[in-house]
């Protein structure tokens, strides 16, 4: 089904009328039509392919300091769902909490999808053919390549949102991505490396990855013989992909205000004006970068996107908000309330987290390093606020300022507060990295996000390893 035959002027008018007459302090109603295609290939054949249509919605009611939330399949009986959400809120009336939501002017908008190459117009056969061709390229790249798996998904969402304050929004969204995972195997074991891709408006990003797939095959083979990294503290140079993951894991999550409200200890540390890094460190979060997976012109509370500076000139200047957290801290909603699907309420999430480029050339990042680690790409990361871990896709030893040999199992960890202070150079090689993974929080995973960054040099980074 395409978007055009879903445009229905009556939907928003009906939702607004229902929201206006609900007996609650605030009511939001969301309806969704989701269409998802997923393809998994193994070597020369399709392993799984699915095409799923989800239709449903949710109602969120705020009543005397309690939230009642109901999600449902289909679009029947919306008024009954509003009553049920109100009942849920009344159920919870043990609490004495008062609440406020950040005020925003009512928004009336229709955000239509503007795709460069719309994946819904690409046949399933063509999508499969692209994945299988990459598998062929990788398998021919080296005799030790044992298997190649391809994963592709695209998800079209059409959303209708109305609240009792007069906002009425219709949005189309697109998310696509995937990866090619190359596995090499010899008598020593197995090693893997992948190529990842993603976009919010262009199937074209899936094409033209031939060289990247060949590089992944070569890296997987090289990793077979690589010794495990020696644990310890190193000066580390991270490539733009890993630097983006670092910004997301090490600082982005800490900036999400739902982790700060109600925590006097953390708020005492995360005060606006605190010094957090070198003077040329600039980290921001944006929903306005057309084409990135974090593109989000309106969030799931109907708040328009803003660019949110988090660290500017090495100083903490902002944080990420929903309407509730903004009101709690007396700040302005930033358009960061996001829900993965209609089964979930919106919570504070990142969109596209960006480290602005610095002025150090790539070669100069390695100057003066006698023994260090160059880390490229990422298998993901995690944080608990204070600590972070990220897994490098590839790692190389730096000796006397030169990259010398590959290492395996490089896991970079640290304390967020001290590690940001140990960034000593920000590269000029700014790169827009768009991968096919996603962010997980409170059971909502994988949420499409992006991170764009240059390379970074970090001193005294703690690297895990079994050889010491």
């Amino acid at each position, binding site marked *: 089904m395409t978007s055009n035959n879903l445009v*229905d002027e009556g939907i928003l008018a009906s939702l607004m009328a229902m929201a206006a007459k609900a007996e609650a302090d605030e009511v939001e109603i969301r309806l969704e039509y989701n269409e998802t295609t997923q393809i998994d290939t*193994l*070597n020369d*054949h*399709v*392993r799984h*392919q*699915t*095409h799923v*249509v989800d*239709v449903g919605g949710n109602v969120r009611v705020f009543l005397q*300091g*309690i939230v*009642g*939330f*109901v*999600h*449902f*399949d*289909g*679009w*029947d009986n919306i008024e009954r769902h509003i009553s049920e959400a109100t009942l*849920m*809120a009344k*159920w*919870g009336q*043990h*609490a004495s909490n008062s609440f406020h939501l950040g005020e925003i002017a009512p928004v009336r908008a229709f955000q239509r999808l503007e795709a460069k190459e719309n994946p819904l117009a690409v046949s399933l056969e063509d999508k499969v053919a692209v994945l299988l061709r990459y598998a062929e390229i990788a398998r021919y790249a080296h005799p030790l390549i*044992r*298997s190649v798996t391809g994963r592709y998904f695209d998800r079209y969402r059409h959303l209708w949102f109305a609240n009792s304050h007069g906002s009425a929004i219709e949005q189309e969204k697109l998310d696509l991505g995937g990866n090619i995972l190359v*596995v090499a195997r010899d008598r020593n*074991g*197995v090693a893997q490396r992948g190529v990842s891709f993603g976009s919010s408006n262009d199937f074209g990003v899936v094409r033209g990855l031939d060289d990247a797939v060949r590089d992944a095959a070569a890296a997987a083979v090289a990793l077979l013989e690589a010794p495990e990294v020696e*644990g310890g503290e190193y000066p580390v140079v991270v490539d733009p992909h890993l630097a983006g993951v670092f910004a997301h894991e090490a600082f982005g999550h800490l900036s999400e205000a739902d982790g700060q*409200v109600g*925590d*006097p*200890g953390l708020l005492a*540390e995360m005060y606006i004006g605190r010094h957090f890094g070198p003077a040329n460190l600039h980290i921001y979060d944006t929903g306005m970068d057309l084409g990135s997976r974090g593109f989000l012109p309106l969030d799931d509370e109907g708040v328009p996107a803003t660019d949110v500076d988090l660290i500017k000139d090495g100083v903490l200047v902002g944080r990420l908000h929903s309407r*509730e957290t903004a009101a709690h801290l007396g700040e302005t909603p930033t358009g960061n309330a996001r829900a993965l699907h209609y089964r979930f*309420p919106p919570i504070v999430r990142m969109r596209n987290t960006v480290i602005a480029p610095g002025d150090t050339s790539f070669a100069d990042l390695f100057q003066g390093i006698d023994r260090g680690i160059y880390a490229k790409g990422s298998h993901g*990361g*995690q944080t*608990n*606020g*204070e*600590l*972070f871990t990220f*897994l490098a896709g590839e790692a190389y030893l730096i000796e006397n300022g030169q990259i010398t040999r590959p290492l395996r*199992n490089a*896991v970079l*960890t640290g*304390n967020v507060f001290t590690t940001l202070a140990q960034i000593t150079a920000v590269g000029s090689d700014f790169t827009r990295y768009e991968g096919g993974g996603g962010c997980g929080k409170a059971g909502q*995973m994988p949420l499409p996000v992006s991170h764009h960054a240059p390379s970074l040099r970090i001193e005294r980074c*703690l690297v*895990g*390893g*079994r*050889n*010491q």
Partner: protein
Amino acid sequence: MTVFTVDPGHLEDLQWRPGEIGDAADLGHQVWSVELKGGQTPMVQHGSEQVRAMRMITAGRLGFATSRTMSWQQLKEEASRAAASGPETSMDEPVLESRSNSFIRSQWDPSMGSLMIERAHRLYAHLEGLADNFRPAVSVTYHEIVTQLANSNGGQTAWRHGYWGITAGGRCVDGTDFHGIAETQFGASEIPNVDDLFNALQDRFLWGQKIQRVMSGQYPMVFLPSVVMGLLTPVLARLSGPALIAGNSAWEDQSDQRVLSPLLTLASDATMPDGPRSAPFDDEGTPTDRWPLIDRGVLKHFVLDRDSSRRLGYEPLGMGYRATPNALPTSLPSNLVIEPNQATLGELLSRFPRMLVLNGWIGARPTNPLRGDIAGNASDLYFVDHGTVSGRVKNAVISINAFEALSSQLAAVGEETRWVAPGMMHTAPAKVPALLIDSVDVTVRR
């Protein structure tokens, strides 16, 4: 306005024509939850999902369709169309017993909601009392899933299972030191005891009041149940159908061979009374049972769905599950169980004069699941001096190879087992004890 309606048609309405091969599943999932978190508006939630899934096999190719609103006939047509370009499959259909679904009724009644709210508030109040700056978080949930299955062999069956879950914890932030604690308990029969849960959290909180410095090196370490699943993820990768079919598993020819320590017995068990996945059938309608995967270190069975079983020449054992209601069944264990041994936690902590206890391991996912290398920042690590916990260890990275840890380094298996909920990094519920692993590499910031 446009309305998408959930079709109330029943599985009995589904007709199979001669020669058709396929199956149909109707999955009803309801969840109720109460969430309380410091500084945030309390939330009471109810969600319902009604998913229909159809698999059709045409000329040896599998077609899959799922919907929340289509009729069975529409789904069947879509699955048949998808089969034309679908993957080759060796899957067959089990013979289902004919069983009426008339006894399947929801267990939910409103008094359960009141109980959830009361328990959530009681636990929250206990946690608030731990310290002035402690920020509590409590979530109480009840899930109920009704599964109905029918296939082209003509059978039909249905079952319901429900389970409770409580996740509780919180943190104190003092300067740049975050002292976080969290525990999850769940069970099918009754709501977990919140006082026991609070006592466990309080013990952990008290353990961590003091900071203990340690040097980098190798230590004996007790992995508490919440982090044991991190070690099992690579094991499951080697046991699972996709890795075997791709030729990536080093265990493909190791049946009946010793692959792990004789102290370790690992099973997929769908018969446990309290198990979230306990049911007479898996999600493909294959009868389930308790199957040893690793028996005293010897590889006994792989984790295979019907397609993987047939491709690899094994009899299906009922290990085909959906990770989400919309997904195709794939090779997953039912409830994953490590058989407990005799050592209490106190005995484990007394085995070595100086050792560590790990309960939180940030980012501890394998950089290469099939090889088993894992490293991550320890977010909840304690030092034990002659059997007594003497403080919390910070700024430490734990590095391990899961296969070596569960082979030559495994020193003892605990007696008390705990449920660990499925999460982002593991897709099966597990009931596991603490494991004592020797010579674990710890790198500490100087």
